[in-house]
């Protein structure tokens, strides 16, 4: 193999990612070629330099600041969610009340034998719709609460 090709393989060689055959051919070339050996050492020194460079650590104040901002934002999000739910509940109540009152008005003009089953159906529909809406508003699926 030519030095050029080996040079491109040195990272994979240093990371131990070469397939066995190519690894062996690279080793053979390295044994015979001083300049490629020097390049390999430079590559290994580079990886070592990366490893020895320390991880920057946030200060305790940074963590306090971060938590303060996050809790503030969380409170805002929860408040917005609560308001939205209240709005929906109001709408739902209004729709149900309107349905019931118009049914009652309708009752004034229609024979009771027609109306009674109709009222029952209306209440059932209202109940089912209301239940579904509330379930949607509650939003989150009921999953296992257990803490791992």
């Amino acid at each position, binding site marked *: 193999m030519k030095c050029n090709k080996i040079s491109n393989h040195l990272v994979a060689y240093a990371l131990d990612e070469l397939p066995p055959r190519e690894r062996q051919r690279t080793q053979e070339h390295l044994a015979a070629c001083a300049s490629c050996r020097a390049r390999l050492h430079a590559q290994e020194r580079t990886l070592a330099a990366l490893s020895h460079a320390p991880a*920057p650590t946030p*200060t305790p104040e940074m963590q306090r600041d971060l938590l303060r901002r996050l809790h503030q934002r969380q409170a805002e999000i929860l408040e917005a969610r609560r308001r939205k739910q209240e709005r929906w509940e109001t709408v739902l109540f209004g729709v149900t009340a309107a349905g019931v009152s118009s049914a009652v008005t309708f009752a004034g003009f229609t024979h009771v034998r027609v109306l009674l089953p109709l009222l029952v159906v209306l209440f059932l529909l209202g109940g089912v719709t209301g239940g579904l809406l509330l379930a949607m508003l509650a939003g989150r699926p009921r999953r296992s609460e257990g803490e791992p």
Partner: protein
Amino acid sequence: MSAVPQQWVAGWGASAVREPAAARADAEAQRDDWLMQQLGRGAPHALDELVRRYHQRVFAFAARLLGSVEAAEDVTQETFLRVLERAPRYAPKGKFAVWLLTIAANLCKDYRKQQRRRAETSLDALEGTEADVVDVEEEAARRLLFRRVCEAGAQLSHEHWTAVVLKHYEGFGYDDIARVMGCSVGTAKSRVHYGLKRLRELLGAEDEMQ
């Protein structure tokens, strides 16, 4: 949580008896997913625990990518704010850390774009960030090394340096690097290799001069 996440049921290599390290990683992953579920429901304790678990990691990741502690602080804060906002819609599809660092990596990319527009770097801000300074001389040498590494990284394209940081410091496999960077596994691999080769030329050349 009793349910076994999908990614461990399907796929090859899932053995009944797991290595202790793998079992620990599984438990950690379950904990992350559970915390995100709790956060989605508005639990404040989940927020505290997620910050305890990942603040250092996100901060170090951003500081390495951007070579600046101030920038890292901004990006870290923004990352966690997004985690909080996206928590109700979070679906555990892969590792939480991959999802988290994808957010951070994208924010770093935006930051670096803006920074290039303003053409300012603040590596000096790295002074005095380590909380536990034991040996001043050794600490100074380590900081100097950090600066050198970040300066060399800044000479790579942002993609190459991100790929190197994900591989070398986060220990991500090429598949996870590809997920974070939104590229193919082959591209992720060639970015890591090219980045490390360039660093060899940049850092290795300095070594030879010394």
